[in-house]
């Protein structure tokens, strides 16, 4: 089957590292570029991480840096607690050799969109600053993108405030611009989707059981997440969530999710609900739908895809990997 052209917009980040692994290993995509922004950690760190991950996963593409801060908000914290000081659970690696694309993120996106002649897809795993900047600068872009999948927003509970998800809280204005932009197909993989596609704790543990360089990184990441969870008083059998990799799975195999069209907005003004995505469940705003929201997901199918992809990089060690 022909590979689908894809741009990965990301701020790796542990779950982004997991997601990019799936996007690379699945074989579904011709990855035409990676764009980075600040989010889980600084722009500089996410960019170096992205270069490292490209090299690690064998992705041959150009990486372009993008936004170093949210569009409007200032003084926003990074997610170091979740991702570790360097965004990758403190995993140390040799500084990657691969160089950066000459232009900025939105320029690469637009250029690739022109080249792909209507077939380009985007998956945005972090805050939406880069994509918002792209559509503000190039209004015609929305017509040129076949599909954009975003790992942002929360239709019910949030994870950084009671109702807001981290990415949309960090740059709610960008989220609002993207929701409003008029993309032909905008798949919103919100926090509820990742909650439905949870990993049982014993499944998550399996992430640490692979040989090789990829295995080593995944072992470090899952151990870091589990240690933090323990420090926070969570039980060892608490499920594990990887928001970005659920979005990646749905991008790879759309049949894993059932989607429903809704009109979604992002709150940009309230102090209590800043960054909350408001889903117009009952058509109160009388507005045509702008997102395809994940309604249900094949959890087992997601888990299978995740581990199929991971094991394509290395043999499983049966629980004693210690490279």
């Amino acid at each position, binding site marked *: 089957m022909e590979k689908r052209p894809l741009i990965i917009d990301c701020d790796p980040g542990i779950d982004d590292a997991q997601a990019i692994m799936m996007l690379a290993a699945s074989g579904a995509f011709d990855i035409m570029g990676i764009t980075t922004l600040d989010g889980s950690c600084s722009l500089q760190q996410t960019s170096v991480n992205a270069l490292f991950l490209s090299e690690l996963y064998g992705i041959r593409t150009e990486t372009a840096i993008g936004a170093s801060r949210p*569009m*409007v908000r200032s003084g926003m914290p990074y997610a170091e607690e979740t991702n570790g000081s360097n965004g990758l659970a403190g995993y140390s690696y040799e500084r990657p050799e691969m160089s950066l694309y000459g232009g900025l993120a939105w320029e690469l996106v637009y250029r690739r969109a022109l080249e792909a002649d209507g077939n380009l897809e985007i998956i945005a795993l972090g805050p939406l600053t880069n994509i918002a900047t792209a559509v*503000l*600068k190039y209004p015609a872009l929305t017509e040129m993108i076949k599909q954009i999948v975003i790992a942002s927003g929360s239709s019910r509970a949030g994870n950084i405030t009671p109702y807001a998800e981290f990415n949309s809280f960090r740059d709610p204005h960008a989220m*609002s611009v993207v929701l409003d932009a008029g993309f032909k197909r905008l798949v919103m993989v919100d926090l509820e989707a990742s909650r439905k596609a949870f990993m049982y704790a014993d499944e998550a543990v399996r992430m640490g059981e692979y040989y090789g360089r990829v295995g080593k990184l995944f072992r470090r990441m899952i151990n870091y997440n589990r240690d933090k969870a323990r420090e926070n008083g969570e039980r060892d059998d608490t499920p594990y969530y990887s928001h970005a990799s659920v979005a990646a799975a749905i991008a790879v195999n759309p049949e894993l999710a059932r989607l429903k069209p809704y009109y979604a907005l992002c709150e940009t*003004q309230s102090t209590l609900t800043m960054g909350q995505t408001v889903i117009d469940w009952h058509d109160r705003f009388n507005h045509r739908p702008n997102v395809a929201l994940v309604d249900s997901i094949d959890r087992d199918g997601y888990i299978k895809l995740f581990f199929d992809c991971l094991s394509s990089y290395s043999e499983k060690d049966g629980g004693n990997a210690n490279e």
Partner: protein
Amino acid sequence: MSSIPVLLDVDTGVDDAFAIALAASTPYIKLLCITTCFGNGTLEQSSLNTLKIAELLKLDVPVAAGARKGIISPLRRGLGREAHGDDGLAGRAGKLPYPRRSLLDMGAVELMAGMIGSCPDNVIIASTGPLTNIATLLLAHPELHDRIDGIAISGGAVFGGNLLPTAEGNFAADPEAAQIVLTSGVKVLMCGLDATEKAYATFEDRERLRLAGTRASDFLCDTLREYAEYYENTMLMDGCPIPDAVPIAWIINPSIIKGTPYYVEVDLNGKYTRGSTIADTLGVRDRRPNVIAATDIDRRAYLKMLFDALTYYTDR
């Protein structure tokens, strides 16, 4: 004498037309391009009006269209309809022929970025509408920030408002864009209502402007007639302000304007004050000034400048 390279972003508009005429006539300014934004009317209307005015003035500058609506705010139709008329040019847009030249086949921000990038000298950007295009330029091109010596804006108000009690129309049309521009680190010259309401033309002043006596000046002066009715009869002012040429006047001759440095931000969340400029006039926020706010203007000198501009456009 070296002239200052200027990029002009407009939402034409009766007074925007004066801004274009002033910027294109003075030897102090080299007008690199004109970009259009929604504002007084829709983007289509402001683009068409801009092309018509450019043709009336026989300008040879590239024009490109930009934002259709604010970054967050929904389009508010006809922000300035009361003063500018349904067509943005006091009901007289139809008297100008359909323009022969068309918009460039690229976006406003691409045009601006290209112009700044290829200009050997640093530039000044002048804005007479909502700040959506300029905010997008600053977001998308961090590498160009230090190539911009200043952004001269018609908008905001240290005190007062027009669209809302404490919010000026251009800022209220896109508060997020205004906040992005003000906090970008690029120097901002804010020609707010404090000065622009003093930049008015009485009936006598308008008769004097009319003495320029060319086809172009006649058209511009005609548009002031209906425009002034709103300000004089509805708002009961002594004359009609011509705000949008004030930032151009400031670039040409800063000495006719009194500027006060303030730290200024734009309120984004207020139920009543969204879009208002919050100027730290008391110095209580302990932040370095990011804005020089125009607080007064030598009205006579300003009107003389406009008259000189109108006489530049001969009928030849």
